């Protein structure tokens, strides 16, 4: 993740970007990320456009 991308995240998300950056650092600092761990993250974020709007 580049500095430009981090700045863009702050612009898009505001303070919520801090939580995201923390989660991203956790992922990238892990020595190993298994296939199952990756799949679990993908599954958790698999939502339709309407799911996001309804859950807001």
């Amino acid at each position: 993740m580049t500095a430009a991308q981090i700045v863009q995240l702050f612009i898009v998300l505001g303070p919520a970007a801090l939580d995201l950056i923390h989660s991203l650092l956790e992922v990238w600092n892990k020595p190993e990320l298994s296939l199952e761990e990756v799949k679990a993250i993908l599954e958790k974020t698999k939502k339709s456009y309407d799911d996001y709007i309804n859950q807001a």
Partner: protein
Amino acid sequence: MNGLHFQRPGSHWLFYHGHRLGHLGCLGLVALSLMLGACVTYKQNAGKLLASTAMTVDAGMRSWATVVKMGKATDEQQAKVRAAYEKYQMAMTVADAAYTALVSLDDKSLWPLASSQLTDASTSLTTLIQSSK
């Protein structure tokens, strides 16, 4: 003697399963370990890229949904973000399959294009959300 051991006391030879390795053998082992390491790193980076992209888009979409709920997004903006998100979802499905092939079957052929398309789709989506807020 089982397995690999390096630098026996008083000796400059390497042994592998009881066989003395020459310089080429040593270089071969080093090259093999480097190749295996590079392959593991490639797969690890692919998984981390996939997970990071999913988490970033998820945060962006949650942020966008708040804007929509507050009534600050026009119908046209919503239609554009919806279309960009659906394009991202297709790219993510392809990248997910390519990553599974990479890790499970050691098939590297699909990942470069799939990851590039995923990056393009997610960047377009987050840029669109940023410009619509």
